[in-house]
C-alpha cells in the first residue's frame, strides 16, 4: 500500500507532464483537426443556447465563432461542448476543449491554481437582486429576514451569504437547481427576492407574468468579469483568443461593422488598413492569415453588433450596455492599438 501511494502520484505527474508537452501547439492541433472545440453553457439564453432548430446562438457562441473566423476564415468551424458549472474547468484541463467560452468569472484562484489563463473579458456582469415592487423595498440593505431564491453551487450563493453577513442581516435561502424552475418559484411567491447575475435577472424579469410588477434593486454586490479561458502554457493560443475578442471591440471603436467593412478596405486611415490586413503585419505576428480580423468582423460583426443581437434591446433580455459600453461611452471596453 505504501508503495502504491508513492507510485500513483508520480504516474499522474508523468502523465500530466507528457500531456502539457503535447499541449504546446494548440494552434497546430486545431488546424490539423479543422475546427475548434469550444466549451459553452448550453442553457443560458443570450450567451449560449441552441435555438429551436438546434443552432447555437449567443454572445459566448459568437466569441467562439470569432476565434474560428480568425483561424480558418470560417466562423462555422466550431464544435460546441455544453458543460455544467462543475465540469467546465476539467474539460479544459484534460484537453477535451480548446477554449472555454462559458460565462466563467475570472478570479485569482482560477487563474493560478486551476492552471487557466483568461483572455480579455467579453462581458462585465455583477450580481443583483430582483424583487416584487409591492414588497416596498428600495435597497438591498432592507432585505433583513428575506427569503432569497438562489442557484446552488455557484459563486452567486457565496456572494449573497457574504453580503448578508457583512450587513448583519439574516436570510432564508431557497435553493433550486435550474434557472427556469427558480424563476417559476420566485414568480409564484415562494421567496421575497431572487439573486443572480444582473444580466440573467433582466431576462427573467422580461418573462415575468407582469414585468412591471418587478424591479431590480440598485445594489450590485459582486464583480463578475466573464472571460474566455484557455490552458496555461500556450502563449500563442492565448494571444489568438485574446486578440479575437479585442478585435470585436477595436472594430466598434473604429466604426467598422459587418455591413460597411468592404468600404472600409478602401479607407485612408492607416489604423484601419492595418487592422483589416490591407497593410500586413498583425496576422503574421499572431501566426494567422493577414485577413484574420477582416474575417471576424465580416462574419461575426463587431462587439456592438454581437451585443445587440444576443442580449441587447431587441432581445427579450433587454440589457443596457452599461459597463459593456466602450470606454469613451462610459463603459469598460477598451482595446489596445492593433499595431
Amino acid at each position, binding site marked *: 500500500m505504501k508503495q502504491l501511494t508513492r507510485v500513483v502520484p508520480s504516474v499522474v505527474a508523468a*502523465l500530466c507532464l*507528457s*500531456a502539457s508537452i*503535447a*499541449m504546446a501547439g494548440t494552434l497546430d*492541433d486545431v488546424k490539423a483537426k479543422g475546427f475548434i472545440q469550444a466549451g459553452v453553457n*448550453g*442553457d*443560458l*439564453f443570450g450567451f449560449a*443556447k*441552441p*435555438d*429551436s*432548430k*438546434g*443552432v447555437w446562438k449567443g454572445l459566448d457562441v459568437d466569441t467562439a465563432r470569432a476565434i474560428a473566423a480568425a483561424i480558418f476564415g470560417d466562423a462555422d468551424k466550431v*464544435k460546441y*461542448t*455544453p*458543460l*455544467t458549472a*462543475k*465540469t467546465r474547468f*476539467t*474539460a479544459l*484541463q*484534460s*484537453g*477535451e476543449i480548446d477554449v472555454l467560452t462559458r460565462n466563467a468569472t475570472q478570479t485569482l484562484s482560477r487563474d493560478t491554481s486551476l492552471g487557466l489563463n483568461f483572455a480579455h473579458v467579453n462581458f462585465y456582469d455583477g450580481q443583483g437582486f430582483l424583487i416584487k415592487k409591492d414588497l416596498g423595498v428600495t435597497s438591498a440593505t432592507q432585505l433583513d429576514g428575506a427569503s432569497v431564491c438562489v442557484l446552488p453551487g455557484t459563486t452567486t450563493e457565496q456572494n449573497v451569504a457574504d453580503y448578508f453577513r457583512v450587513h448583519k442581516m439574516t436570510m432564508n435561502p431557497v435553493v433550486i437547481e*435550474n*434557472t*427556469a*424552475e427558480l*424563476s*417559476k418559484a420566485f*414568480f409564484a411567491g415562494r421567496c421575497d427576492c431572487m439573486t443572480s447575475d444582473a444580466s440573467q435577472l433582466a*431576462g*427573467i424579469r*422580461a*418573462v415575468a*407574468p407582469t414585468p412591471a410588477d418587478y424591479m431590480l434593486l440598485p445594489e450590485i454586490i459582486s464583480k463578475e468579469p466573464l472571460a474566455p479561458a484557455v490552458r496555461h502554457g500556450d502563449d500563442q493560443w492565448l494571444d489568438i483568443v485574446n486578440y479575437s475578442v479585442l478585435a470585436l471591440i477595436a472594430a466598434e471603436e473604429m466604426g467598422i461593422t459587418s455591413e460597411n467593412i468592404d468600404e472600409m478596405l478602401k479607407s485612408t486611415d492607416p489604423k484601419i488598413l492595418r487592422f483589416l490586413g490591407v497593410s500586413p503585419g498583425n496576422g503574421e505576428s499572431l501566426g494567422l492569415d493577414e485577413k484574420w480580423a477582416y474575417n471576424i468582423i465580416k462574419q461575426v460583426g463587431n462587439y456592438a453588433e454581437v451585443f445587440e443581437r444576443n442580449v441587447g434591446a431587441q432581445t*427579450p*433580455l433587454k440589457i443596457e450596455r452599461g459597463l459593456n459600453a466602450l470606454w469613451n461611452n462610459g463603459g469598460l471596453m477598451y482595446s489596445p492599438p492593433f499595431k
Partner: protein
Amino acid sequence: MEETPPEKTTQRLRPPIRNVGILSWIRANLFNGWFNTILSLVFAYVLFLTIPPFIEWAFINSNWVSTSEECKASSGACWSIVTANIRFILFGFYPHDLQWRPLLAVVILVLLLFYSQNRKHWAKSLAYAWAIGLFSMGLLLKGGLFGLVSVDSSNWGGLPLTLLLSVFGLTAAYPVGIILALGRQSNMPIIKSFCIIYIELIRGVPLISLLFMSSVVFPLFLPEGMSINPILRAQVAIIMFTAAYIAEVVRGGLQGVERGQYEAAESIGLNYFQSMRRIILPQALRIVIPPSVSILISAFKDTSLVVIIALYDLLKTTQTTLSDPKWMGYSSEAYIFVAMIYFVCCFFMSNYSRKLEKELDTDL
C-alpha cells in the same frame, strides 16, 4: 303430454333496484359502512375540486399551436411549447433537414420491438432482422455511406439517444449480469472473488458518480488528443452499472432453483454449461422476471442522468427549451409531455413482463 306450468305459484320479480347494476356496486363498495362512506365523500369532494380545473386548464383553455404571446394572454395550458420546439426536443442537434433519418431509425426500432414481443416470432430469422435493423439504424444516424451525409455523433440527441442508450444498455447488461451471477456462484476462487468485488464495488456507488468518472476523471488519464466518444463512455458506464444489479437478481433466481434440479442435471451426465443452459437458467430466469423488469425500468429512467456529462437526451433537450425566455414559464406542460413518453415506454415494459410471466408459467 306437456305439463303446463302451474300458474301464479311463483312470480318472477325483478330484484330490488338497490341490489343490481351500478347502484348496488356503489353501495357495496363505496358506502358499505360509515367509515367508507366518509372516505368516499371526502375523495369525491377532492376529485370535484381538482379534476374540472385540470381539464379546463389542460384541454379547454389550452393553446396547442400558438406563439408564446398568445399563451401568456390565455389562462390555460400552453402546449405550444411542445409543438413549437418538438423537433429540438425529439432530435436535439441533429441537422434540421436530415431529421427524417433519426425518425426513421426510431420507427425501425419500435417496429422491431413490437415484432419481437410475440414469442412465436422468436426464431433465427428474427436475429437476422435485428442485425439488419441495427445496422440500418446505425447507418441512418451516422451516415457516410450510400450517399448519406455523415453526421457526427456529438450531434445526436433527444429521443434517439435515450432509446439508443437504453436499448443497447439493457440488452448488453443482461447477459453480462448473468455471467457475473454465475461467476459469483463459481467454485473457482479468482473468478468468484473478481465477480464479488465487481458487483459490490459497482453497487456501492451511484450511477451519477460512474458517469462523472467516465467523463471527468477518465479523460485525464488518456494521452492528449485522444478522446473516446462521450456516448460510448456513457453507454459503457450504464452497462457496467446495470449489469451489477442484474447479477444480484439472477443470483437470487439461481438460489431459488431447487437443489434437486442441479443434482438431476448432474445425474443425467450434463456438464456445467449444458446443465446451466438447459436446466438451471431457464428456471432461474423465469423466477426473476418481475425483479429484472423493475431494474430494467429504473435503468431506462436512469439514462436521463447522462445530462451531467453534457449529452442531450430527451429530458435535457426539453430543459434546454425551457431556458428560452419565450417559453420559460411553461415547464409543467413540457415536463408532462416528457413524462408521457417515459410512461408509455415503462408501461410497455411492465405490461410485457406480466404477459411473459403468464406465458411461461408452467407450474413446476
